[in-house]
Each structure stands twice: as C-alpha cells, then as structure tokens.
C-alpha cells in the first residue's frame, strides 16, 4: 500500500498535496490528520502547517489479486495476475505456464476459480462487482468456437429438418448459441432440462 505524509497551510491544502503526489482521486484515499494548523502571530511568526497522512484505499480488485495469488500458490502454479477494475467489474487475466490446468475441461476449472474469487471478494458491506477471469484469451476463443458450432448445426438442422440437442452448457455459453442463431430464417433455439444439465436445442421453425 502506498502512503505519503504531506503538509500545507490548511488541512485541505495538505490533502491536495497528497493527491498530487500519489496521483489518485481524493475518494480513493484514506486521510488521517496528524497535525491541525496553528495560526502564528500576524499569520507569519510561529505558525504551524497542517500535516496529514494519506494512504491509497484497498480496492476489491486488490483483494481479488491477493486471493488468486495465494490460491494459485497452493495449487502449485505460478502466474502473473493482471487486474483491471471498474465501478461494477473486476477483469482478471492470468499469464504463465500450465494455464491449461487452470482452464480445465470446457473451462470448468476457470469457472470455478472465477466463482470462488467472486465469493471471496464480494460481500454485503462493500457491494458487488462482477468478476471476470480469463487466461490465454480462453473466453473469446470459446465464444468463437460456440458461434461456429451454432452456425454449423443450424445449417444441418435446416437441411435434415431434425432437431439437435447440444451438450449441457452454463447460462453464459447457452446465450452465445441462442444469439448466434437469433436471426436465422430456418431454425429456432430453446433450452431444456435443469442446471447444470440444461442444454440448448436447435429445431426447425
């Protein structure tokens, strides 16, 4: 955590100095007033400046990074963890060797890590941010694979006029299939079954 001490004629001025030194917004700082200013004689002699200690607040993104770093250490995988945080989202990218182990079959390990990170970081007091975990562009590649699969199977269903039921997928992946065939003139899609075995069905219109 970065901490600075700064001083100024007033407390506000001291805080402004700290903001300038740390280069972050005032809202992202914890401010502790060390010394109140004392006005000297004629405002010149014997006066004392205000002094504050400012530290950058720990964010949920910081917590996410710390949680994942320790989790990966326990699993025995080394990775560089990049965190990008916005008001409602924490995007995390992992880089290193052996990322395949962290992805798992059809991304199930990646999804589990993402879910646990979200649980560890979010709580009632601090509010909720969506955690999106990725490595080696797995999410985008998987999305492209699913889109291609949808188009291919859509074509097959239109040709054979026989419905096709896909393998079980999570809600996010099912949505990709639905969206890919949304404006198709020949086939429609719907889901059936209960999670975690809920699957998309492609049928003729």
């Amino acid at each position, binding site marked *: 955590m970065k901490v600075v001490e700064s001083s100024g004629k007033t407390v506000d001025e001291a805080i402004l100095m700290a903001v300038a030194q740390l280069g972050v917004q005032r809202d992202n700082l914890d401010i502790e007033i060390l010394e109140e200013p004392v006005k000297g004689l004629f405002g010149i002699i014997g006066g004392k400046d205000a002094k504050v200690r400012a530290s950058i607040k720990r964010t949920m993104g910081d917590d996410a990074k710390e949680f994942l770093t320790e989790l990966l250490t326990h699993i*025995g995988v080394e990775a560089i963890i990049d965190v990008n945080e916005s008001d409602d989202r924490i995007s995390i990218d992992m880089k290193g060797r052996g990322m395949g182990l962290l992805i798992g079959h059809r991304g199930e390990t990646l*999804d*589990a890590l993402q*879910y646990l990170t979200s*649980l560890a970081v979010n709580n009632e007091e601090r509010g909720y941010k969506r955690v999106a975990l990725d490595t080696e562009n797995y999410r985008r590649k998987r999305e492209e694979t699913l889109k291609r699969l949808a188009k291919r199977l859509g074509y097959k269903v239109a040709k054979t006029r026989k419905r096709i039921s896909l393998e079980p997928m999570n809600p996010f992946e099912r949505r990709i299939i639905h969206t890919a065939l949304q404006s198709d003139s020949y086939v429609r899609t719907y889901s059936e079954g209960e999670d975690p075995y809920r699957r998309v069905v492609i049928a003729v219109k």
Partner: protein
Amino acid sequence: MRELVKFIAMSLVDDPDQVEVTEIPGDHMIIIELRVAPEDMGKVIGKQGRIAKAIRTVVKAAAVKEKKKVTVEIV
C-alpha cells in the same frame, strides 16, 4: 492439498477460526475432511452445492498436478 482447502474455506466463511481441515491419506486416494462453524455451512456448500462443487473442481485440478486422487468431504 489440505492447505489449499483450508485457504479457500477461510476466505469464504464468517468465522475462519472454526475452519478445520484434516487429510486422511490412503493408497490410491486422499480424503480431505472440511469442518466449519454450523452457521457457515451454507458458505462452503452453496445453493444446490454450487460452492462445494467449485471447491472440488479446484482441488481436482491441484490433484492432477500431484497425480493423486482427492475427494473433499464437508462434515
């Protein structure tokens, strides 16, 4: 493996002091028993066991690395 389960559980519960993890080694399989405060059971199991499943998935990945079979039981 025990440390991994302990770390995950302690990050999820309200009462980390009450998290207890024991490892029972076997010839082909390691059994890991996880105990938490009764009020925290929901925090490690989740709706329809979703959290428990995520814990097991992560432990399974770690076990592959160590070439061992591991089961996690919440008791």
